[in-house]
């Protein structure tokens, strides 16, 4: 698209957020004193090892869980519950199995009172845009993994959310589909400039997509380091071979590695994952 509209909405601010599960005598502190700001129209990537509390962080911003300390503020309003201004694209597919792709996409507008005809027209347009033309009347079980993901994207986009929260949305896709989906998401983002909070445990994906990386520490999670990614936009796969990309990756790895060693000394499973996920990559790349 020619015009790039910079939306003045969708600023996320986390102030000293903490989340503790369990009773007083058996506490698990998952998130502790996490503070960060996501400016409107930015794509921020949250990166950390599996099991470090990324999903919890997303649940907090989405409003499914309430923080036990601190507060989350979106455009000056405190988050008290889930709402259609912040849409979540989940790790596992969360399409409704009993609805066709079209019915899935129009679900949001319909429950919020849009007329069925209007919603259907809009949904058809969006499905075409995500490359699902001709699959409107298929059930999710009839779609491939990549198609399900794109259908979910369409289901989120039709609500014109201020913020999209994406929790490892491309996990479980094969490498080829995954790369295509990443480029696809980038194009969408560069067109619409919706604020995106994207969670991943893949460093390449994080740098390729993000304006900034929020590198998390091992549990209890807080933001360890904020790393701005100054690669030019619009991006395509060619940035992966630039010197700046390698440099950024090296910087991120240092932080992650440091965190991994620290957690490893404490014998945590998360630390093992961290070494597993990033150690392997730094050797290869």
């Amino acid at each position: 698209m020619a015009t790039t509209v910079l939306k003045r909405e969708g600023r996320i601010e986390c102030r000293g957020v903490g989340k503790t599960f369990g009773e007083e005598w058996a506490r698990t502190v998952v998130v502790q004193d996490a503070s960060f700001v996501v400016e409107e129209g930015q794509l921020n990537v949250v990166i950390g090892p599996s099991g470090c509390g990324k999903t919890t962080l997303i649940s907090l911003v989405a409003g499914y869980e309430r923080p036990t300390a601190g507060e989350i503020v979106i455009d000056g309003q405190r988050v008290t519950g889930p709402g259609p201004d912040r849409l979540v694209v989940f790790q596992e597919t969360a399409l409704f199995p009993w609805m066709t792709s079209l019915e899935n996409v129009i679900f949001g507008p319909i429950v919020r009172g849009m007329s069925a005809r209007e919603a259907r027209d809009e949904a058809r347009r969006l499905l075409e845009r995500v490359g699902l033309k001709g699959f409107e009347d298929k059930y999710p079980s009839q779609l491939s993994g990549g198609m399900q993901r794109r259908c979910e994207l369409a289901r989120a986009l039709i609500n014109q959310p201020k913020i999209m929260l994406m929790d490892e949305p491309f996990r479980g896709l094969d490498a080829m589909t995954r790369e295509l989906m990443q480029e696809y998401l980038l194009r969408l983002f560069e067109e619409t400039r919706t604020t995106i909070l994207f969670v991943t445990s893949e460093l390449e994906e994080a740098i390729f997509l993000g304006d900034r990386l929020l590198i998390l520490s091992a549990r209890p999670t807080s933001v360890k380091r904020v790393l701005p990614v100054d690669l030019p936009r619009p991006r395509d796969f060619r940035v992966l071979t630039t010197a700046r990309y390698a440099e950024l990756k090296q910087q991120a790895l240092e932080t992650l590695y440091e965190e991994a060693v620290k957690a490893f000394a404490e014998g945590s499973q998360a630390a093992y994952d961290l070494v597993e996920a990033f150690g392997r990559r730094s050797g290869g790349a």
Partner: protein
Amino acid sequence: MGPTGAKWASILWTLLCAGIAIMAVRETPRPQSLALWAAIWIVPAVVLVTIWLRRRERAPDGARVRAVARRQPLGRRVRKAVLNVHTLRGVLGIVAVLVIWQLAQPLGLPIIKRIPPLSDVVARFFADNGLFWRAKYWNGWTVSLFRIFSGFLLALIIGVPQGLAWGVSRTLKAGSFPVFEIFRPIPPLAFLPAAIYLMPTAELSIVFVIFLGAYFTIVINTINGVYNVDKSLQRAALSLGARRNDIFWKIIFPGTLPSIITGATVGMGITWMVLVAAEMIAGRSGIGFLTWESYTGGDIPQVVVGMVSMGIGGAICSAVIWRLGGNLMPWRRLF
């Protein structure tokens, strides 16, 4: 859903059945008028065949339309639905069992050789005083199926909403579930003496225990079905702006449907077990009663006729539920 004709037919039919149910409160229904019974069984038969042959598909614009298959001539559709490789395999299986049954005596197979062979049973069925020629046999079918149908429908009407309510509201469940759990382990047949004593007619007591047979299973399955609906789907719906009402009707209810169908299928099996025993004790008619009567009369081939009839009846009922379930859940059809 269907064409308006079918809708009106089913409404009329429900009224008819309601009328008979009212009659049943006063006395056991009898075939006073042949036309009445015919009306009772022809309508559901037609509706069932229609459902069987119908396949819902969608037009490119997303509207549900009757499928291409429907525009094909009726004979062709019937042939397609009946004459396929699956039916053939099923028939082969049945034939194999019949052959073993027939040959059991000449071959001297242990235990089964004491069952009267197939030929004897068939001969007994069609003999001059055989059940085939007797009104009480065909009346027995009607009466038994009617009892099953009333009890089972009642169990669905009460059990499904109750299971859904208990699944959704912990407060409601906490208050009334313990009472339910105390009643549940009591076998339906143990309720029979009390039911005969309490109910105005024997007919109603039979329907009541049949109801109990299906009811508990349906409720338990429905509750579990609600619990098994993926929480992430409810979260997704909440994020999309759904209210509690939407969540219930568009997420929880369709998500529970597979469990409801399972509950209904298992419950239907139990109703047949209960039916026969109830008819043996409280009934003066029905397939179960005839079987028992044949046994007390020492007519073993006729006992087998009764057993086979029950088997066929049960199989038809289960098949109907599976098919209806499949039609209610098009997303579960495998491709």
